[in-house]
């Protein structure tokens, strides 16, 4: 692999939260939302309105196709409320309507919108490729090489901007690599990600080739997978079903981990003593990553559709409403964590909602952790005296429905 062919300016455009590619999620929100969310959380577990309006964002922001104009929206802010919603997927469904995966190759037909037994059957096909024991498969086949190649590109320079030069490229190279897409086409695919027919056009030859001759990659697993439908009949996945899977994995895999890696790196670079400890004792990297996930989860909001009238934590939710789940607020609920605003890697590790919760909990969470761990560890191995550039603007945490850092200018050597 060579990653030198990756166009730096293009990465900057695709992976700057403030750019046109990302501003529709509220990427230009630059205030600190946490004090606002703390006030909302303290005043009531559930409020009427979307998270972005309740946060005071002046424009329109969207995430996963929401808000929908014809549905009332509510937002939950406490750990207990989110836990209850995530664990009751009959009352709080993942889609406003039934999903028919045979009806077309689109994201809306992927398992993230399914419920109950249907979701369980589809998720079961890919879960074995994403369990912790498979992290080595991902690391050896795709992650390690990308990480080392990217560092090769700047290791002689004595400086880098790690958001563009490092974090942004690793997840997109990992997920496209696992699909059998060469690195020189990875950014093209990222650029057209919102255009499902175009993504399908690019994937079609690979799916056809893997049907002929499977390899050791993710598309091969999908073409070989057999699904038992509700009548007990077993069948292979159709092309449309594979494309829906692929669209989901590309969206989730290339759009999240780069931001969380940047958040983790920025948090550590802003704490040089802690970074020095981790450089000496890499076992500390795991709790540091877990704390970063709790402290600033990159996707702070997911949603559920209310399927029946219910009084929920003191608020009447009508059937048909959307409930925004503010996972970032729940992750700083003082009812669950002491001094929740502090970044403290020594705190007792326990589950947060960084990867969501309930049966839809993030499929790729162990791969994401492996990417972040491998990435930061390699930086510490190869860049002595890694530190923030004191003459450049320090990293700032920005974004509303997708949170990340502005830039990570560093010096080393």
């Amino acid at each position, binding site marked *: 692999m060579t990653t030198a062919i990756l166009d730096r300016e293009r990465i900057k455009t695709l992976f700057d939260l403030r750019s046109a590619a990302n501003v529709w999620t509220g990427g230009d929100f630059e205030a600190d939302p946490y004090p606002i969310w703390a006030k909302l959380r303290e005043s009531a577990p559930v409020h009427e309105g979307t998270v972005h309006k309740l946060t005071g964002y002046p424009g329109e922001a969207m995430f996963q196709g929401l808000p929908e104009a014809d549905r009332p929206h509510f937002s939950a802010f406490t750990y207990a409320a989110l836990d209850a919603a995530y664990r009751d997927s009959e009352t709080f469904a993942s889609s406003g309507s039934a999903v028919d995966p045979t009806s077309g190759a689109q994201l809306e037909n992927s398992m993230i919108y399914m419920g109950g037994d249907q979701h369980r059957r589809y998720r079961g096909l890919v879960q*074995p490729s994403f*369990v*912790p024991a498979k992290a080595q498969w991902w690391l050896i086949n795709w992650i390690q090489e990308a990480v080392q190649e990217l560092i090769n590109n700047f290791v002689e320079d004595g400086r880098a901007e790690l958001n563009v030069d490092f974090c942004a490229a690793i997840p997109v190279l990992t997920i496209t690599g696992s699909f059998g897409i060469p690195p020189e086409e990875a950014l093209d695919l990222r650029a057209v990600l919102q255009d499902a027919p175009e993504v399908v056009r690019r994937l079609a030859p690979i799916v056809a080739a893997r049907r002929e001759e499977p390899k050791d990659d993710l598309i091969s697993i999908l073409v070989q997978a057999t699904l038992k439908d509700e009548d007990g009949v077993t069948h292979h996945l159709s092309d449309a079903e594979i494309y829906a899977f692929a669209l989901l994995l590309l969206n989730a895999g290339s759009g999240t981990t780069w931001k969380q890696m940047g958040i983790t790196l920025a948090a550590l670079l802003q704490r040089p003593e802690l970074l020095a400890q981790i450089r000496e004792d890499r076992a500390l990297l795991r709790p540091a990553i877990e704390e970063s996930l709790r402290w600033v989860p990159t996707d702070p909001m997911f949603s559920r559709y209310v399927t029946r009238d219910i009084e929920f934590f003191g608020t009447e939710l009508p059937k048909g409403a959307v409930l925004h789940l503010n996972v970032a607020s729940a992750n700083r609920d003082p009812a669950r964590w002491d001094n929740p605003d502090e970044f403290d890697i020594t705190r007792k590790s*326990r*589950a947060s909602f960084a990867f969501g919760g309930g049966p839809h*909990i993030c499929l790729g*969470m*162990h791969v994401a952790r492996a990417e972040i761990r491998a990435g930061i560890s390699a930086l510490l191995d190869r860049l002595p005296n890694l530190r923030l550039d004191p003459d450049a603007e320090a990293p700032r945490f920005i974004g509303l429905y997708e949170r990340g850092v502005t830039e990570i200018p560093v010096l080393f050597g």
Partner: protein
Amino acid sequence: MAGHVVVDRELCLGSGMCLVYAPNTFAHDEQSKAIIVDPAGDSAEDVDTAVDACPVGALSWAPGEGTDSASGGTPSTAAHGSTGV
């Protein structure tokens, strides 16, 4: 949390959350269902963190069997926790 932890295989999704918090106690079988490989692999506190973390409530503490990790339950489905954490 006296007793031993049990896995409900029907509920288990294979998310791997239990392996994050109690990696020496839990593993996955070939169907990506959680199994218990060493009932005494992690502290009872860590196993309890895993029980709390399971996104689909597939882990629970079963009463009885006390603190003796050599008694009760089958090794593949149960782990024991000490009392009083």
